[in-house]
């Protein structure tokens, strides 16, 4: 299909599909209503994301939110006279092999109010509040990593035990 020649591989998550489905079903119930307009605007924005358009802005870590600093946000609004009411949260993944297109993983479409879209995205990525990505990565590292500091007694494992004098308990 010619559509697959897009510079970006679009990877909608299950959660995003559900967000769109909910919006679509509401739009079917209210033809030409705000949901209908919002659905079209959201699909247009997703089309632009697929075409390689930049986000509205990259996200930064804020302690009261899950860390989404590897993600981008694209504003979506059906009313041109009001602040955009919704956000699309997505992130770009580098190609796994040379020559492959980048992947843009679309994580959530949600309301801006009360940061709903961002909490939803964090939940879908399994990111608890108050932890930075670095902290989460450190927790997920294999404990066997040689660079990680361990208890002092364990570090003595690096020394040959055979020649060690027997320490006396004093």
């Amino acid at each position, binding site marked *: 299909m010619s559509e697959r020649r897009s510079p970006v591989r*679009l990877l909608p998550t*299950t959660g995003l599909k559900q967000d769109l489905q909910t919006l*679509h079903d509401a739009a079917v119930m209210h033809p030409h209503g705000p949901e209908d307009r919002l659905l079209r605007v959201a699909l247009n924005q997703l089309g632009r994301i*697929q075409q390689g358009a930049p986000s509205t802005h990259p996200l930064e870590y804020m302690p009261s939110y899950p860390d989404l600093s590897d993600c981008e946000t694209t504003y979506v609004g059906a009313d041109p006279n009001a602040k955009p009411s919704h956000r699309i949260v997505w992130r770009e993944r580098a190609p796994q092999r040379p020559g492959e297109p980048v992947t843009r993983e679309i994580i959530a479409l949600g309301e801006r109010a009360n940061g709903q879209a961002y909490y939803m995205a964090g939940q879908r990525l399994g990111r608890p509040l108050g932890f930075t990505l670095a902290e989460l990565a450190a927790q997920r590292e294999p*404990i*066997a990593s040689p660079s990680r500091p361990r208890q002092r007694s364990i570090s003595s494992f690096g020394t040959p035990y055979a020649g060690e004098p027997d320490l006396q308990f004093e």
Partner: protein
Amino acid sequence: MTHNSNAHDNGTPDAELPKFSVNVVPTDQLRREDLATMLNLYRRGEITPLIFGDGNKPEAAIIPFAAFVRLMKYDHAAHVHAEAAFQAELSRRTQESDASGEASMTIEELAESLGPLGQQWADGHRAAQQEKRDE
């Protein structure tokens, strides 16, 4: 802490030790002077290991520190092995979950999967794209 079990999956056979007997020093009536004597005997190599416990039940042993380190090394190797296997399994499952149900698709395919309004949008979007290409 060291593990109480030898059943580690690190390639070391979980061999049963042959039966052996030990002398257990009861602690309930142990005085400070007795302890000093015992430790001196241990230091001279006359009692090794030095085992304590009540009711002739071994509870704790004083062993050379090098032997303790060796035991810790053994447990640590087993832990590293188990952890590496756990992390590998975790990565495999994470990758699988990334791949499952989240295949890439075009925006038109995504829109069409939603229902009639999505199909309508996809048709319009395709036509607009085609117009752009024709220009």
